[in-house]
């Protein structure tokens, strides 16, 4: 019994900070359970959300999960910055600091950025391409629940069993049992394997959706830019995630079953892990940024009231980036002795990939050129991206110049660089997307005044946080140091950086307030087209009905909805009662949720080496697969009367 307690609650879970978190978690859970029970919402929750296969609702769930994870990852970031605010600080001990930078990085990449990207895919893509759902709606739900349970698994590590503490890159041999006993690293490995499966399925889903389910007339070269970037992101996912899964599973075998793939002794080869990890990791950064590139293309064109400049150049640039992104992974470890020739190859490929990216930047500026720029919050996020991202891209080229990288590797220059591109590119883009598409799924507009406050705080906070870190790199400060002493001259810049981080935190708080306030008091979007949009999603009412389109639109031009408006043909969205037919839609199912739960149980068993629990989880998964396979009752008909009522309520009935 006491050994079980020692396993579940090692010292790292019983520090004051963790215990206070325990209390908060218990109180919050109790409040949620009380609310659901008191107002009889359990059934509603199960019927409308946990079992849904509707891409719009799945998108909303991804969005909520991502914002929650942004809170967790952001709290981690503020703790790190608070610790580094002054030299010789003792707010966090070294082990504590190591755990927090590990969970910060892992959560931000896998459980914040990825789900926020999938939220955008789910919310926008089917509507944008004139489809009623994704190609495999139930698989879409399975992807979500695998992600959600993996995120849950990863997040409980700090209160039960102990956090991982080897960095988000988790290089062996530091992650091997000899240097890392305890279960924290198992949590990391299982969470990434499970969410990776979900991500791969999402890649398959959107690849097929975009290739097979576009509205008639929408040729590939008539697709909105965001559909293009989603398409290539899906391809990147398909090839990038297998190496990650392999690296994770092999490390897990080393830890659980005594193999020696990456160990110090017995012929283990840690560098093989590094190759596998970055073979995933480099395409991953383009997985993170390409969707945002798509969002900027939509937002900048919409709010400049102008066609996207250089559409075909943009498409070829994206394809070039996709191809080249598989040829740059060694630039993450030039200093690992791969040889001068290898380093030059990967250095030049890194410099080369900057060219299509640079071209895209100029094309966004030329999209604004000769347009009429409207300063909405969505547009401000997109505009903030251009001058910010170009700095991140430039420092990326500096890192790609091999001998320069020998000095910058693992320094704060690197830290500043990748936060500059991931926040300045990915996060700014996703925020732009959230403000842009929010009315489409919720039916309400986000308050612009609050949104501008959130934007300015976050934007200025960002510059204040990360520009000093470039300078700290020149001063020789390396990443993952839990503290530093006087005498290096690092103190004032670190303090400025910490202040900036808290300003960003304030921006996040205002943003969440903005979301909640607007859901209660926000202006209702009656037109379905609040921004004078260009693409098909703005031809539907807000929020779009479950079936998206009563009649699938026919596309004749690139900006399909804009063209309809120009040709005064917007009445095509109205439908005559006699033209309405029954619509077949996928039916809700509990299987995706239960499958996620099975994977969770399986993972808990693996983390603690409780084989019978792992076996039970695996059995649950097999049962879900069998039941799902023979479940032929997986779709439903929406009767025409119901469609007629819905359309009439939107005022979209002709005659």
């Amino acid at each position: 019994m006491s050994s079980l307690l020692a396993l579940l609650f090692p010292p790292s879970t019983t520090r004051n900070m963790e215990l206070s978190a325990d209390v908060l978690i218990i109180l919050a859970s109790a409040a949620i359970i009380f609310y659901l029970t008191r107002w009889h919402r359990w059934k509603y929750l199960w019927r409308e959300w946990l079992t849904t296969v509707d891409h719009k609702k799945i998108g909303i769930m991804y969005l909520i999960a991502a914002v929650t994870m942004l809170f967790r990852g952001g709290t981690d970031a503020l703790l790190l910055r608070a610790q580094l605010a002054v030299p010789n600080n003792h707010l966090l001990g070294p082990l504590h600091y190591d755990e927090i930078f590990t969970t910060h990085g892992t959560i931000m990449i896998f459980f914040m950025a990825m789900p926020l990207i999938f939220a955008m895919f789910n919310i926008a893509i089917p509507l944008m391409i004139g489809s009623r759902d994704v190609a495999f709606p139930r698989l879409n739900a399975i992807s979500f629940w695998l992600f959600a349970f993996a995120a849950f698994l990863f997040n409980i590590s700090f209160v039960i069993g102990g956090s991982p503490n080897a960095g988000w890159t988790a290089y062996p041999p530091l992650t091997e049992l000899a240097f890392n006993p305890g279960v924290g690293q198992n949590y990391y490995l299982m969470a990434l394997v499970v969410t990776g499966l979900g991500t791969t399925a999402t890649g398959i889903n959107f690849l097929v959706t975009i290739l097979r389910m576009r509205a008639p007339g929408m040729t590939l070269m008539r697709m909105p830019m965001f559909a293009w970037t989603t398409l290539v992101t899906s391809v990147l996912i398909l090839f990038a995630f297998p190496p990650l899964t392999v690296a994770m599973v092999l490390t897990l075998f080393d830890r659980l079953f005594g193999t020696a793939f990456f160990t110090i002794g017995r012929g283990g080869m840690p560098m093989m892990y590094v190759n596998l990890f970055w073979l995933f990791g480099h395409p991953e950064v383009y997985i993170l940024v390409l969707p945002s590139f798509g969002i900027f293309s939509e937002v900048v064109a919409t709010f400049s009231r102008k066609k996207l400049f250089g559409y075909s150049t943009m498409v070829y640039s994206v394809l070039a980036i996709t191809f080249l992104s598989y040829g740059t992974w060694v630039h993450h470890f030039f200093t690992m002795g791969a040889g001068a020739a290898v380093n030059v190859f990967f250095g030049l490929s890194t410099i080369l990939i900057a060219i299509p990216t640079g071209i895209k930047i100029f094309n966004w500026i030329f999209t604004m050129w000769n347009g009429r720029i409207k300063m909405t919050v969505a547009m401000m996020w997109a505009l903030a991206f251009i001058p910010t991202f170009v700095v991140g891209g430039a420092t990326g080229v500096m890192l790609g110049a091999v001998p320069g990288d020998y000095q910058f590797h693992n320094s704060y220059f690197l830290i500043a660089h990748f936060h500059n591109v991931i926040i300045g590119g990915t996060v700014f883009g996703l925020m732009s997307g959230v403000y842009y598409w929010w009315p489409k799924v919720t039916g309400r507009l986000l308050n612009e005044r609050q949104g501008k406050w959130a934007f300015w705080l976050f934007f200025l906070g960002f510059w204040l946080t990360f520009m000093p870190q470039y300078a700290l790199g020149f001063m020789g400060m390396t990443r993952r140091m839990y503290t530093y002493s006087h005498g290096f001259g690092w103190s004032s810049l670190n303090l400025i950086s910490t202040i900036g981080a808290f300003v960003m935190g304030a921006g996040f708080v205002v943003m969440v307030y903005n979301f909640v306030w607007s859901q209660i008091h926000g202006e209702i979007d009656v037109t379905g087209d609040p921004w004078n949009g260009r693409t098909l999603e703005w031809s539907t009412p807000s929020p779009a009905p479950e079936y998206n389109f009563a009649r699938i639109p026919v596309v004749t031009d690139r900006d399909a909805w804009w063209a309809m408006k120009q040709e005064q043909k917007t009445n095509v969205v109205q439908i005559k009662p006699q033209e309405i037919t029954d619509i077949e839609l996928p039916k809700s199912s509990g299987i995706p949720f239960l499958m996620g739960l099975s994977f969770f149980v399986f993972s808990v068993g693996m983390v603690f080496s409780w084989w019978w629990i792992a076996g039970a989880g695996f059995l649950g998964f097999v049962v879900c697969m069998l039941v799902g396979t023979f479940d032929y009752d997986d779709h439903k008909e929406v009767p025409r009367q119901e469609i007629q009522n819905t359309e009439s309520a939107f005022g979209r009935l002709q005659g």
Partner: protein
Amino acid sequence: MSFKRSKRAIRFIFMALAIGLSVSGCGNDFVLLHPAGPVAASELNLIEITAATMIVIILIVWVLFGIALVRFRDTPGNKAPYRPLWDHNKKLELGVIAVSVVAAVIIAVPTWNKTFALAHVPKGKSPIVIDVTSLDWKWLFEYPSQHIATVNYIDVPTNRPVLFELTADSPMNTFWVPQLGGMEYTMPSEVLPLWLEASKPGLYWGRSGNFSGSGFVHMTFNVHAVPASTFNAWVRNVKTTQPKMTMADYRQLLKFNWIAPRYYSAYPAATFPAETHGFTLEGGMYMEMQPTPK
């Protein structure tokens, strides 16, 4: 403007920027900008070339962006042209590609040259060899020719290349002395070479650049660069006054802790791998290994 002058101008601009950034007002803290040897100087030179090129690109983007933002705002009475269908311009697009390609070439050429140039100890100079082993959480240095060993401190002669042979008996670290040059990983069962040189006497700090556990922050050491005669005197002093390292001493060093500098007048050969597996000794290395007297 001559090439040399423009180089100086770049350096001046960069220094001004760095000093401007330094709130402490102490430019000496920017160790990357104060190279004390040819490797670090060459790397700084490349950093300056890439930074200058990239600053030009950044300025072009910022200026164009600023003009677009001011000129094409959706305000009543804005007289700037509004052309909602203007979506391509061959000359403009080719111009953008040309600018990007030129910038890439400016950076690519010196990157290529320097990567190969820095891969070898300069011909005609015989390096002094130091075998480096990263341990949890300390640095063990062994001088195979001088037969002495130290922990967390080294003396090196000035104006002579130092060939560091890097390995680990611990999780990975990187060996980094910013003022002498860039870093290289230390990995178990691999030996990676890195050459550095100090061209002026001084005390230069070094540290690990790769996280290796909770004591990682303590993996610091000092490099003391001194004239050859002083170096030889220091070696003699260590040989005559310090104890020998035994295998038992080495096993003590493997413990998870950090310690002050130590000196040994001899060390067991088995503490550094005589042979390594993998590709590092069979070509494809960052740098050809010099035959080392063992």
